[in-house]
């Protein structure tokens, strides 16, 4: 049998063996058997010595061509096997992607602080400085400087916890207005979030401990329109586009004129619903122009400067925002409640 025939035979064998080779190991065996040091093609090359010298170059070329061809065939097959094996592996590794998983536990901030953070974010963006002050406060700051002298009927509305004749648990964050004015020069733009106290029994909508945020601006030519513009910006920031304010005349001893401020009901966007009792408005805060008497008591010249102030109840905002029906939930600390905030 000549070299050519032999190669042809080997080629035939390769084809049939490779067709049945399903893995890389079998393929390697075929390669070794054919192309290895002791392989059949190698043997054929070695047997070339028996050929006539003039036949050797042609035979050698044939063998080398065959080696190249066989190598290519093996590589091609190897690639095919690799694809196949990967496919099989992928199939084997298939998971039930719907099976429940364990999630890392992320906690949450208290709803009051979430609301407070959002508001603080809004007002710091408008150039307000955030101040905090004592919760156990002097009567002087809590009442006197807020134009609420002893026996003033307005004290009735704020059932006060007393420590002694001169010290109270602050009934509102307004004393921070006085503290801000006494320690700063205009222009003053501050907000004062914090905890306040009133002698209310605990029920679904009352708590003896609750939170407010006071806002105060003192500058030249500050007016009611500035208060409204600032609160409009706040309303839109917290509740979204289309939420605006309604001002209603009211009375606070430390502001004049005074206003109650309603926001467009965010549940019905003013159409009227159960939450806003059909009015389209939700009462959320009070404010007004700082009473000139307060300015003077706090060392600000009321003939040069004017200012506005407002106070927002955070519990109410949180309850409206998150649909919390019972204030007590916020002070109970049950993780089934707290775990709902994200």
């Amino acid at each position, binding site marked *: 049998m000549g070299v050519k025939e032999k190669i042809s035979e080997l080629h035939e064998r390769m084809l049939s063996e490779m067709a049945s080779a399903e893995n890389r190991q079998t393929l390697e065996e075929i390669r070794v058997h054919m192309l290895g040091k002791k392989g059949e093609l190698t043997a054929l090359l070695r047997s070339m010595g028996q050929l006539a010298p003039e036949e050797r170059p042609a035979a050698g070329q044939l063998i080398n061509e065959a080696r190249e061809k066989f190598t290519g065939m093996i590589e091609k097959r190897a690639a095919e096997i690799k694809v196949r094996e990967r496919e099989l592996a992928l199939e084997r590794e298939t998971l039930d992607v719907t099976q429940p998983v364990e999630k890392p*536990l992320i*906690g*949450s*901030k*208290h709803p009051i*602080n979430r609301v407070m953070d959002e508001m*603080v974010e809004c*007002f*710091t*963006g*408008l*150039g307000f*400085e*955030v101040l*905090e002050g*004592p*919760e*156990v*406060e*002097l009567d002087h700051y809590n009442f006197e400087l807020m134009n609420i002298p*002893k*026996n003033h*009927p*307005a004290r*009735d509305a704020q059932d006060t*916890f*007393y*420590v002694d004749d001169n*010290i109270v648990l602050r009934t509102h964050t307004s004393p921070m207005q006085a503290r801000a004015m006494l320690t700063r020069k205009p222009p003053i*733009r501050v907000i004062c979030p914090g*905890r306040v106290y009133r*002698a209310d029994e605990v029920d679904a909508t009352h708590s*003896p401990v609750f939170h407010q945020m006071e806002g105060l601006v003192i*500058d*030249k*030519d500050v*007016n*009611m*329109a*500035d208060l*409204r*513009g*600032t609160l409009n910006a706040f309303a839109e920031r917290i509740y979204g586009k289309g939420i605006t304010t309604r*001002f209603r*005349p*009211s*009375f606070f001893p430390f502001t004049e*004129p*005074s*206003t109650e401020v309603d926001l467009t009901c965010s549940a019905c966007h003013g159409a009227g619903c159960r939450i806003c009792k059909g009015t389209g408005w939700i009462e959320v805060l009070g404010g007004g*122009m700082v009473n*000139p008497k307060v300015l003077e008591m706090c060392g600000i010249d009321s003939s040069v400067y*004017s200012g506005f102030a407002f106070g927002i109840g955070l519990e109410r905002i949180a309850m409206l925002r998150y649909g919390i029906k019972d204030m007590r939930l916020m*002070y*109970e*600390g*049950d*993780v*089934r409640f*707290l775990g709902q905030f994200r």
Partner: protein
Amino acid sequence: MKVPMKWIRRYVPEAPSADVLAEKMIMIGNAVENVENLGSEVEGVVVGKVLTCEPHPNSDHLHVCTVDVGETEPLHIVCGAPNVAAGQLVPVARIGARLPGGVRIKKGKLRGELSEGMICSGDEIGCPPELYPSVGSAGILVFQEEYPLGADVKPILGLDEDVLDFEILANRPDCLSVWGLSREAAVASGTTFHMPEIVVTEKGGDIHDYVSVEVHDEKLCPRYIARVIRNVRVGPSPLWLRQYLYGAGMRSINNVVDITNFIMLETGHPMHAFDLDMVEGRKIIVRQAVEGEHITTLDGKQHDLTPGQLVICDAVKPSCVAGIMGGEESEITEKTHTMMFECAVFDYAATRQTSRALGIRTESSSRFEKGVSVRTAMQAMDRACQMIHEMDAGDVVSGLIDLYPHPAGQQTVDASCERIARRAGVPMSPEEIESILKALRFEVTRDGDALHVVVPDDRQDVTMEADLCEEALRVYGYDKIPGTLLRGETTPGGRSAAMLMRMKISDLLTGLGFYEIMNFSFVSPRSVEKLGLSAEDARYQMLPIRNPLGEDTSVMRTTLVPDLLRTLALNMNHGNTAARLFEISRIFDPVHRTEEGLPMEHMRLSMGIYGNHEDFYSLRGLVECLLQQLGIEIVIARGRETFLHPGRSAVLQAGDCVIGTVGEVHPDVRDNFEMPVRAWIADLDLEAMMALSTAMGEVKPMPRYPAVNRDLSLVMPEDTEVGPLMREMAQSAGSLLEDVKMFDVYRSPVLGLGVKSIAFSFIFRGQDHTLTEEEISSAMGKILKTAEQYQAVIRS
């Protein structure tokens, strides 16, 4: 304050409907809590005449009646009332009628007899006897007068009335009156308030023959007006008056008392009537009570009086607590023959104090507390005398007593229209301002921009330009205020460093799975006792509240721990299998005070965890993770808080500063707080953390040379503290040691009793070269030498 619409319409005839008026009143500052329709639950009840009334054949108490309701055929109605009789005019609820409580009248048979409706009692149609006294007593209501048969009973009884319930602002005592509110209503709806003509008809005699009045305390009683009525004819009030009072939420008593109440509601001036025959010496003395005096008030209660409390006395004893409540003895009764009307003004602060001290709040006291106008008192007295005459309730004796030693002047305010408009932020013209103020009864003189304003007598709240600004703006319309953003010099704003720090801590802890809780700042004094603290512990020094809601909320807390434990217990007992909780809040130290004398307030952080995957080490890991993120380096040592497990309690220190404690809750304390499972808590000083926190510096360059790892298992006595051992081994290793970690703790009888094996991993690295074997061996040698000092030897 409740006002029936017909009372407002009496003075503002063009007032709009109740709902429209309510909306307008709200927008000028008179909040309306609700609009109630008195008879809204009653429908289909008409006047009927009982034609026949026969005993029911099958009952010994029912009657079978035929009732004419103005139609061709009378109705057959079975009635159980004992007082039903032929000839009576009665309210008849026809088939389909609605009654209070959702009752609906259906056709039916009662013991075999057809009944086509129901004859009603006053109660059944929501009409109390004070509103319409029936003829006779118990049973059905029997009309006293003739009414057309078939007519709706609601207008007759005053049950077709809308009542506005106003919430009166503290600065508007003038609106605690129908006149005040009606004036507002007129302005709100752009119509006119018609003041009634007041005429007093005197019937002879001389008041000085009947009574003398002395005021001994002009400060507490700046004005006292008295009038005497003789031949008093006490009787029931006319129906219209009863309906007015009922609508305003008051009960009709008799014509004289009703007049005083009517005047108070209409004018805002509380009045009082004394039976002069019961006034000793016919002498009225207004003075402060003296020690030991007492009085029995109208409600039958006896009160001890003290100096500072103003009383109206006769020649010998107090007979009325001024402005608050009258005495039982001089009360008007059916026997009263001669009486004295008092219309006075009492000091608001004194009235408030006395009312608080005696625990009596009345319609009268609440008006005096808010301030009653001194200048309008005479008008009220005249109006009362006019009503006595018109209702023929007595004869007004000629003359009056008016003790008013220091007549109040008129209040005036000077202002600038331009400043008013600028403050309001609306383009109000001087003309608009002037016309609004005039509509509000201010006497205005305007010279260009300058306003000179005389304030109405009952508007004591208006004292300065800012007040006029509010008056002008509320009528001009708060809804017309535009929204403008702040102008002028900008301010940097922003949160304080302390707030930023708390935000960072909250963010970190929530990321670590903690939920933030909030507790009240006041607690029970016993909450600290439950922690088992030693007697001298400073946390027992709690700031007491003088008027707490109860013992449970009577002192300001000195530690957050009891609330944390309570909240952990609540979660455990609510079936929550695990929880991580934290609270950032203040504690109050009454011993140390600020310069202002206020108790020091300190920020604390409390953390607590429980659940199957938690233990002491997991909490310590969480705490250390937090502190590391804040750039705080700490040393951990054994701690000894009484509320923590003595073997599982650590104190965290940075230098001399104690940051706080971490540990397992002591089983005794768990029992005290009813905690069924173990829990671990940390109690940290947030201010110390703030002070120790460091900002991160520059990043280190990436290492250029390889690290070498050496593991080492050391066997050591069980009570060896690994923390200090590791710290010292690391120190002795020198600068080539990059890091050391503990990665295994192993105990086995094979090792021996009372020992443990701890495996460490040391990582070495050179900054400028690859380390040699000699360098590493030398460092490991030093490490082992240090370990030997702790009786720690290589595990063989």
